[in-house]
């Protein structure tokens, strides 16, 4: 157990050390005067194929570009899923996907959610896995990264930039090179990378066993790096092919944290005050470590009901877990995947102990403990502005953030963004509980059933994508309702937050005085964490009591 905890500490330390250099690299990559010799020719090729030019966009044009090109991509991929049966690269003879499932899947991957109501082995052809899923796994995080960069530009009083250039740079300079290298490392560690169909073998005891394979390595690296999280196989990174050993697990955790942890430093560099970014980074890391501590202690204690059977249970709760990871790496992975809104799993979250499950839910509800690439950091900045606003109310001064006055217009947009998250989660869950179509899907009785439904919609709204997978969610009701929740959870806040950025960008900067509320010191860290917990707890505490907390108290 001590070695396991030590390995967690070392993993996190390496992630923390990578954050700053990667953050600076990101800031440089999106600096338009930086024409990287290695990547610029590729980017130019893409611009000339598509006919795009680098022109500054107003926030409205930036936001419409995001919405329209994402809609085009959803449509293209929807069509591929619907007709995959008759398209090439389908050696395992997989049939066309149903309309509602194809809608759900296309939206799911475009919104960086990767909720999966299909099973990879039997639901998608290799072509769909590649030009459908894999393609979206690049463009979805690149979209969110671009929006985050544009938002930071707005905060620092610059024009927002050009969405298409930002998206292409995100893919060519950040996502593709890292995914390529780590993809090959994964294969070296044992992850398959082949276009051959499923292998059939005769087992040692003489039975028949089918073993699904595929181009998994190239898929796995971008799945983690882009905080996508959708598995090539049904059980995601619990599958031995998708996570064969300790080192592969270690690299996956690093990749999930890489960009979300780096963005505060990108922000500090772009606004010209590294302390601003560092203080947010430290605040988020404190929340992360607190959640990890709760999860680890709950999972090591295990399930009292199983322990009462009298077996040897020093390992902790092993139902739904893999021996090569044990409790420590499973618990760590569950906290990292929900903090970074990735949604990959190496253990079944449905079988987590009630408090372990509570931590994963809380991470997604707050959506600010790092958060997914881009989208999460915009959310963090939103909470920072709320913190400034609350402090302003307390002292009776017009709040300022980075020298820009936060006024009625911005606060109205932020309040709407803040409310859409609980509205989607709680509203959709209420509908599911009230209709037989919804509650028929619940597979575990009692309080845990409530958690299953809440988890599904929280995961959708936060664009996480993991699930309490016992839920029978492959029906029209769930496909359509979660599809809508994912779409709104993603694009509503992109539009409103770009509007905030557009509004702030044109405001005159107020000179800093002795009376200015500073946003780069320890006091602000306290205000920020306070804002996250007070707003988050007030919103979600009642439903957490009904679900995981009640289950914990009655187990």
């Amino acid at each position, binding site marked *: 157990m001590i070695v396991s905890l030590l390995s967690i500490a070392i993993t996190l330390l390496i992630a923390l050390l990578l954050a700053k250099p990667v953050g600076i690299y990101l800031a440089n990559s999106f600096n338009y005067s930086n024409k990287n010799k290695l990547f610029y020719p590729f980017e130019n090729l893409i611009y000339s194929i598509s006919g795009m030019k680098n022109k500054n966009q107003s926030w409205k044009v930036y936001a419409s570009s995001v919405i329209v090109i994402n809609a085009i991509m959803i449509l293209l991929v929807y069509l591929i899923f619907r007709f995959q049966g008759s398209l090439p690269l389908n050696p395992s003879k997989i049939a066309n996907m149903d309309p509602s499932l194809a809608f759900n899947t296309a939206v799911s991957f475009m919104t960086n959610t990767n909720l999966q109501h299909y099973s990879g082995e039997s639901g998608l052809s290799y072509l769909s896995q590649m030009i459908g899923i894999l393609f979206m796994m690049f463009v979805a995080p690149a979209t969110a990264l671009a929006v985050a960069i544009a938002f930071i530009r707005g905060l620092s009083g610059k024009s927002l930039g050009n969405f298409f250039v930002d998206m292409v740079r995100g893919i060519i300079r950040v996502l593709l090179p890292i995914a*390529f290298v780590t993809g*090959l490392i994964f294969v070296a560690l044992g992850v398959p990378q082949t276009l051959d169909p499923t292998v059939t073998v005769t087992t040692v005891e003489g039975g028949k066993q089918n073993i699904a394979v595929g181009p998994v390595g190239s898929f796995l690296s971008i799945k983690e790096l882009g905080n996508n999280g959708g598995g090539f196989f049904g059980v995601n990174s619990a599958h031995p092919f998708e996570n064969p050993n300790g080192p592969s697990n270690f690299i996956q955790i690093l990749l999930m944290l890489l960009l979300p942890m780096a963005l505060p430093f990108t922000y500090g560099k772009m606004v010209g005050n590294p302390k601003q970014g560092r203080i947010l980074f430290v605040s988020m890391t404190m929340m992360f470590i607190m959640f990890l501590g709760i999860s680890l202690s709950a999972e090591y204690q295990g399930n009292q009901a199983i322990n009462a059977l009298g077996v040897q249970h020093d390992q902790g709760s092993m139902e739904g877990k893999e021996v090569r990871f044990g409790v420590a790496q499973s618990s760590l992975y569950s906290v990292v995947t929900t903090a970074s809104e990735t949604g990959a799993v190496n253990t079944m979250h449905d079988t987590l102990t009630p408090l372990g499950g509570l931590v994963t839910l809380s991470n997604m509800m707050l959506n600010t403990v790092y958060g997914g690439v881009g989208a999460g950091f915009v959310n963090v900045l939103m909470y920072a502005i709320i913190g400034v606003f609350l402090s302003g109310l307390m002292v009776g001064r017009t709040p300022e953030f980075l020298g820009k006055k936060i006024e009625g217009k911005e606060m109205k947009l932020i309040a709407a963004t803040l409310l859409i998250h609980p509205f989607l989660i709680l509203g959709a869950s209420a509908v599911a509980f009230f209709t037989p179509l919804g509650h028929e899907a619940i597979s575990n009785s009692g309080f845990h059933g409530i958690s299953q439904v809440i988890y599904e919609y929280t995961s959708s709204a936060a664009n996480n994508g993991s699930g309490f997978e016992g839920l029978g969610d492959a029906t029209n009701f769930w496909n359509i309702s979660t599809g809508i929740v994912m779409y709104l959870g993603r694009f509503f806040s992109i539009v409103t937050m770009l509007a905030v950025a557009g509004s702030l960008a044109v405001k005159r900067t107020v000179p800093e005085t002795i009376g200015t509320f500073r946003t780069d010191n320890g006091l602000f860290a306290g205000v920020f964490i306070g804002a996250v917990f007070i707003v988050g707890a007030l919103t979600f505490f009642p439903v957490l009591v009904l679900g995981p907390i009640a289950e914990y108290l009655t187990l």
Partner: protein
Amino acid sequence: MQSHSLNQHNEKVFIFNNIVKMLRLSLALMVICGLVYPVVVTGIAQVVMPNQADGSLIYNEDKEVIGSELIGQTFTKPEYFSGRVSSIEYDAAGSGSPNYAPSNEDMMKRMKESIAAWEKANPAVPVNELPIDLITNSGSGLDPHITPEAADVQVPRIAEATGINEEKLKKLIKENTQGRELGLFGEPRVNVLTLNIALEKLLQ
């Protein structure tokens, strides 16, 4: 006011003029990210490390595939080491587990049955020495490993069923045990499939 409506007009014109460009950009990125990237990685992987790229398959003397080192198999006969509980019977055409909640009654029932079956098959080993990984369903349903303790407690049963002495079996377990990589990552574990293949060789 006039400049405002002019702006709105410009935005509509912008989107309309750019739809074809956006479609072209989408298709270009689809080809780069969805085809060129995975095909290049597949090409390199197949040339440089074909064993891993094909799924770490294990062959017998007749060059027939008998499994994958990374994918567990069902072992029910008493003379083989048994692996973890799998609700999908180790059928790797899919993957999965029943996703039982900690409070699920079916799970408790299944575990009690596993314990009863254990007591019947392993009278020499009391239940309080039975490691929890042997009665719990793995996450994937394909877990190829058990803990070294879970292999050790099966030794008396296998010694009796095969006539191989316990010392030899323990040595076999050691040979098929993998420690933490770099002494740090992952947990110590025994590969049940390679262990049983080695056991079978001893029997022949």
